[in-house]
C-alpha cells in the first residue's frame, strides 16, 4: 500500500519552499543531495513513511522552492534550516542527510545543538578525504555521475529527463548545487574541527564502493563525531537508499526508532 504524501509551501527567510509530508509517527526530516527532492514514490521514502512522519523539503533553489537572494553557500543553507526548524516546530527532529544533504545535516548539527535529536549521515559530502578525492560531479556529464553513483548501475539510468519541465528542474538543481558547492569543491575546511561539538546519537552509513565520496570520508566523520558509528553497506555505491533500499530502511529504522 502506498503512503500518501501532501505538498505544501512554507515561507521562511524570504523564500517559499516546497515540503512533501507523509506517513505517521515521530517526525523525520530528510535532506536531499544535489539531485534534488527524491519525491514520495521512492521505495525508501515509502519505507520510512511507514514508521515516521516524513518531511522532505526541497532546499531553497531546488525543485520548485524559491531561493532567497542572500542564500549562496552551504553555511547559509544551514542557517536557513535552523530557522525552518524553528518555524515548523520541527526542532529536535530526527534527520537523515544524503550526500550533499548529509554535509548540510552536519553543518546544522554543529551550528545548533538542539536542531536534531538523532543524526544519520549517508555517503555525506562536506569533508575532504585524506585518501582519494571527492569526484567532481560538475565536470562530468550527468549520465556519468549517475553511472558512478552505483556499484552496479541499473539499466536505463543515463537518460535525460522525460519532459522539458522535469529537465528544467534537473538543470535548476544542478545549477543550485554549483552555486552552493563550487569552492572549495564539496567540503567545508572548518567542519572536521567543529564536528566534535555533536553530542547526539549519530549513525554514519556508507556504500563500500562509493565512487563519488570515498569511504574514507565516512571514516573521518566517524572519527570526528564522538560516539558515532559507521555502518558500511557491501556491494553498494554512493546511494544505499537506492541501491540497497530494504537494507537501508532497516538500518535507518533500527537507529532512529
Amino acid at each position, binding site marked *: 500500500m502506498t503512503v500518501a504524501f501532501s505538498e505544501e509551501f512554507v515561507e521562511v527567510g524570504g523564500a517559499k519552499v516546497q515540503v512533501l509530508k507523509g506517513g505517521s509517527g515521530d517526525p523525520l526530516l530528510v535532506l536531499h543531495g544535489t539531485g534534488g527532492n527524491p519525491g514520495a514514490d521512492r521505495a525508501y521514502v515509502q519505507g520510512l513513511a511507514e514508521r515516521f512522519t516524513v518531511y522532505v523539503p526541497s532546499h531553497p533553489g531546488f525543485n520548485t522552492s524559491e531561493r532567497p537572494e542572500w542564500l549562496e553557500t552551504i553555511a547559509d543553507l544551514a542557517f536557513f534550516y535552523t530557522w525552518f526548524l524553528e518555524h515548523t516546530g520541527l526542532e529536535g527532529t530526527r534527520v537523515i542527510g544524503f550526500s550533499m544533504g548529509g554535509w548540510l545535516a552536519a553543518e546544522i548539527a554543529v551550528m545548533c545543538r538542539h536542531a536534531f535529536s538523532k543524526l544519520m549521515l549517508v555517503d555525506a559530502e562536506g569533508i575532504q578525504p585524506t585518501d582519494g578525492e571527492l569526484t567532481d560531479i*560538475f565536470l562530468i*556529464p550527468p549520465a556519468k555521475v549517475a553511472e558512478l553513483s552505483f556499484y552496479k548501475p541499473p539499466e536505463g539510468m543515463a537518460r535525460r529527463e522525460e*519532459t522539458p519541465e522535469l529537465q528544467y528542474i534537473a538543470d535548476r538543481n544542478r545549477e543550485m548545487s*554549483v552555486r552552493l558547492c*563550487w*569552492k572549495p569543491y564539496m567540503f567545508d575546511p572548518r567542519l572536521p574541527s567543529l564536528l566534535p561539538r555533536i553530542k547526539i546519537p549519530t549513525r554514519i552509513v556508507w556504500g563500500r564502493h562509493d565512487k563519488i565520496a570515498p569511504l574514507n570520508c565516512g571514516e573521518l566523520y566517524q572519527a570526528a563525531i564522538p560516539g558515532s558509528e559507521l555502518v558500511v553497506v557491501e556491494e553498494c555505491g554512493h546511494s544505499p537508499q537506492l541501491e540497497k533500499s530494504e537494507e537501508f530502511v532497516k538500518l535507518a529504522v533500527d537507529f532512529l526508532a
Partner: protein
Amino acid sequence: MDVYYFTEMPYADFDENEADKYPAMRLTFPNTYFDPKVARDLFKRYLDEYQYAEEVGFDGLMINEHHNTPSCLDVEVNITAGILARITSKAKILMLGNMLPTSDNPPRLAEEIAMVDVISGGRIISGFVRGIGIESWANNTNPVHNRERFEECHDLIIKAWTTPGPFRWEGKHYHYRVVNPWVLPLQQPHPPIWTPGTGSPETIAWASKYRYPYAAFLTPLDVAENLFGLYREYAAADGWEPGPEQFAFMVNCFVADTEEKAQETGKEFIWRMRRPVAGPREYWSPPGYVPLRPPGDASPPRRTRPSSEQTFEELQENYHLVVGTPDTVIKKLRYVKERLGIGSLLLEAQAGRLSHEDTMRSLELMGKEVIPALRD
C-alpha cells in the same frame, strides 16, 4: 573601415592526435606536452609578426587570453599589451580582452590597463569579456556568478577611471576600503570599451546599454546579422542609432600569391577549427554559465554547426575562413563588410600551423592590396 591583425599565439608543436586520449585539448590536456624552449621561439615569432602587421598597415593589433590550452599561449592580455606598447608605435592595441568575472582584483585591473594606455600613448582599446566556460574551471570562479561579477567588475573599473579617488566600494563580490589608483588612463575619460560575443542576448543588451562596440566572433554571417540586428533593436529602444563603428566581425584569413597556394596552405588553419573548439559540454558550459531558460522560452540564436564538424570547403562557404589571392579575399571581405555593416574587421591571420614565412607573406599582401581596397 579599420582592419586588425590577430593571432591566438597557438602552440601546435606536438602530435595533435595525442589530444584524443583526453576529454579535450583544453583544461585537462596535460601540460607535459609543453616545452618552454619551443614557447620562447614562438613568442619571439608571434611578437615579430605583430610588429610586421603594424609596419604593413594594419590599423590595430588584437590580442586575447585563455588558460590551460595549447591553442593560446597568451595568458595575460595586459602583459602582451605592455610589450606591444613598446615594440609598436601607431597601431591601436585591441585587448579582447580582460576576463572580468575571473578577476578577484578589479582595482588592479584598472591600474594595469591605465598603465598600458599611458605607456602606449593612448592606443589601448579595453575589451571586457566574460571568458568562455572553461575559464570558470581554470580560474575556479563560480560560473553561477559569471555575469554578476562581469557587471560589478566593469562598474568598479569604470568608476576607478572616472571618479576622483579615494572612494569606498562595498558590492556583492568586491569590497575595497580605498579605491584610489594613482595611474589613470591617458585617453579620457577612459579607453574605448568593446565586448565580444557569440550569441548571448544578455551580452548584446549590456553592450548596447553602454554603447560599447560589439564584436561577433567566428559566427556564421546570418547569426552575426541577427546579433547585430538585436543590438540595433536595443539601441532603437534607447533612442539612438548605432553606426558601423559599433560593430566588428572576426574571421580567419589567409592571402597568398596564387589560389592553389592559398587553398593548399590555408588548410593549416584547420588545426585551429578542430580540437581547440571541441570538448565536453561540461567544460564549455558549466552549470550556471548560461542562464536557465524555463521550458517554452524562446531559445537565443545559436551557431548552426560547430566549426570542428565543418570541412575545409564549408569553413570557407560559412565565412569562418577566407583564403585566396588578394583579389578573391578583397571580394569576399567586401561582401562581409557590406552585408554586416561593420566598421572593424578582425583578421585572425595566423592560426594553427601556419608557418612564419607564410604568415609574413600573407600579412605583406594584406597590407599592400587588401587593406587599402577595403578602405574604399
